[in-house]
C-alpha cells in the first residue's frame, strides 16, 4: 500500500508564534489516522497545511501523490473535507447543497444528480432532498456535510472534529458511517477531542501538543507503552490522606486532582483491599484507556 499522505518536518508560525513545530507523519492508504491534542495544539493548522489552504514555513507535504501546496488543487480533486464548523448553504435545499458543491469539482449537473440519491441514502436523508437546511437537526447537518464531502467519491476523507456537539445517537451513527467508508477502502484522517472516538475508529493516531508530535502509534500500542493497564479512581472524605499514606505503596503512579485520586497500577487488588478498609471512600475500577494516555502526555491543565 502506498502512502495517502506524507508529512515531513512541517513548521508554521503566526506572527512569530510557532503553531506547528517539526510535525512529521505518514498516513497509509486505507487506514483511519487520528490527530489528537488539546485546544491550540496545532491540529487544525496541520490539516489546513495538508490540504494546501496555507503555505508552510518549512517542511514537505505529499498528498495522494501531489506536492502540497504547489499542486494542492490537483490533490484536492481526490479529497473530501468535513470541516469543523457548519458551512452548509442555508439558502439551499439538501439536494441543492450537493449539486452546487459538486460543481466546484468540475462535475456536470447530470453526473451529480445521478450520485445524489445514493449519497442521501448513505447519510440517512433519503426523502429529505427538498428540505431546507434550517429544518435539519445537528446530526442531520453533519451527515449532510459528510455526504457533501463524498460528492467526488474521494480517496481520502479529512474530518475536523466530526462528532463535536452531537448527541450519542448521532455520534454513533457517524461512527458507523465512517467504518463503512473504511470498509470501502477509503482513507480517513480525522481530528478529535473524544478519546473514545479515536480508540474506536483509528488504526493509528498521533498525539500533539504545543505544535509538536508527542507520540504516535495504534491506540493499543499507546496504552501499553505509556500507561499501567488498570486505573482506580477514588473519591471521598480525606481521600488525599489515604492516597498519601496507603496508595503510594500500592500503585505505580498516584495522581491527586481536586477531589479525586487516580491510581495507575499493574494489579488493582491490593488497592481495592485497602479502599475496603475505608468505608467512606468510593471508587471506580476500570481498564486504562486512551484518555489516560492523553492526560498523562499533555497534562491536566485547562487549554483555551
Amino acid at each position, binding site marked *: 500500500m502506498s502512502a495517502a499522505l506524507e508529512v515531513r518536518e512541517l513548521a508554521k508560525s503566526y506572527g512569530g508564534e510557532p503553531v506547528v513545530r517539526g510535525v512529521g507523519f505518514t498516513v497509509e492508504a486505507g487506514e483511519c489516522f487520528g490527530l489528537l491534542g488539546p485546544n491550540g495544539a496545532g491540529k487544525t493548522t496541520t490539516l489546513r497545511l495538508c490540504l494546501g489552504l496555507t503555505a508552510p514555513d518549512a517542511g514537505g507535504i505529499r498528498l495522494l501523490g501531489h506536492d502540497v501546496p504547489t499542486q494542492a488543487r490537483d490533490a484536492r480533486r481526490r479529497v473530501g473535507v468535513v470541516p469543523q464548523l457548519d458551512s452548509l*448553504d442555508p439558502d439551499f435545499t439538501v439536494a441543492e447543497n450537493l449539486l452546487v458543491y459538486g*460543481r466546484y469539482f468540475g462535475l456536470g449537473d447530470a453526473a451529480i444528480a445521478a450520485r445524489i440519491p445514493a449519497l442521501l441514502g448513505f447519510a440517512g436523508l433519503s426523502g429529505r432532498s427538498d428540505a431546507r437546511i434550517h429544518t435539519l437537526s445537528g446530526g442531520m447537518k453533519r451527515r449532510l456535510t459528510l455526504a457533501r464531502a463524498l460528492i467526488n467519491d474521494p480517496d481520502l476523507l479529512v474530518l475536523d472534529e466530526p462528532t463535536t456537539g452531537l448527541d450519542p445517537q448521532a455520534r454513533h451513527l457517524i461512527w458507523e458511517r465512517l467504518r463503512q467508508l473504511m470498509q470501502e477502502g477509503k482513507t480517513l484522517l480525522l481530528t478529535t477531542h473524544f478519546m473514545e472516538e479515536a480508540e474506536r475508529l483509528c488504526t493509528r493516531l498521533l498525539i500533539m501538543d504545543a505544535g509538536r508530535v508527542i507520540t504516535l502509534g495504534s491506540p493499543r500500542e499507546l496504552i501499553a507503552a505509556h500507561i499501567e493497564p488498570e486505573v482506580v479512581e477514588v473519591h471521598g472524605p480525606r481521600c488525599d490522606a489515604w492516597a498519601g499514606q496507603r496508595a503510594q505503596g500500592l500503585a505505580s503512579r498516584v495522581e491527586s486532582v481536586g477531589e479525586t485520586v487516580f491510581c495507575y497500577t499493574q494489579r488493582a487488588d491490593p488497592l481495592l483491599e485497602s479502599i475496603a478498609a475505608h468505608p467512606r471512600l468510593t471508587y471506580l475500577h476500570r481498564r486504562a484507556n486512551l484518555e489516560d494516555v492523553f492526560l498523562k502526555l499533555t497534562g491536566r491543565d485547562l487549554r483555551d
Partner: protein
Amino acid sequence: MINSSLTNCYALPAISRRFVPVWRRNFLVWRKLAVASVLGNLVDPMIMLFGLGYGLGGVMSGGGTSYFSFLAAGFVASATMYAASFEAMFSAFSRMHGQKTWDAILNAPMDLDDVVTGELVWAASKGLLSGVAILMVAVVFGYAPLSGAIAAVPAAMLIGLTFAALALTMNALAQGYDFFSYYMTLVLTPMMMLSGVFFPVGQLPAAVQTAAAVFPLYHGVALVRPIVGGTLPPEWLVHAGVLIAYAAAGFYVALVLTRRRLLS
C-alpha cells in the same frame, strides 16, 4: 499547476473558468428570491426617477422631459454602482465570514482567486441588473431610445466590475458590517453627488470639477449618458480606460488583501 498565490500573495491574479460555479452558486440563491429582488430593482429607482424627474424637472427651465432623460441616464450609472458595491460588501462578507461559504469552496479543488473572481463577476452582474432595470423603465416611458439602452449595457457592466472590485477591497479589510457604512457614506454618497448624476458637473466650481474627474463614477456617467442618448462620446476611450484601470487595480488589491486575510 503551480499555485503561486499561496506562497506569494502579490502574485498576479490567476483567472480561470473555475469562477463560473461560484457565480452560478450566487445566481441560484438570487433566483430563489428573484421576484422580490427584481421588484426592488424596478420600484426603487422608479420612485426616485419619477419623484425627482417630475418634481425637480418641473421647476427647471427646459421642462421635465429632458431632465427626466438626463436623470435616468445618470441613475443607470449610480444604481449599478450601488448594487455592485452592496453585493461585493455585505453579501460577499456574509459568504466569506458568517456562512463560511468560501471556506467550503476552498476545500474543493478551487483557489481563492477563483472565489474572488466569481464574486467580482457576480457583483458586477447584480449591478448590471439594476442598471438594466432603469434602462427598461426609461425605454418604456419613452425617455430613452431602445437602441441607446441596449448600447449602454456593456458600459453598465464595466461600471459594475469597477465598483465590485473596489468594494471587494473593503470586504477584504472589514471586521464587521459597520465598516461598509463608512465606505457608503464617506465615499459612494459624495461621489454620487459630484459625478454628474443629478446635475452637470459643469455647474460645480472649477476646482471641484477637476477633483470630480478622479472619481470612477464621473467617468461612468460621462460614458453612459451620451450612449443612452444614442451617441458615443468623443472621449469614450478615456472614460472606459479610467474605469478599466480602477477595476483592474481594485481587483488586484482586493486579491492581495484577501489572500493575506485568508491564506496566511
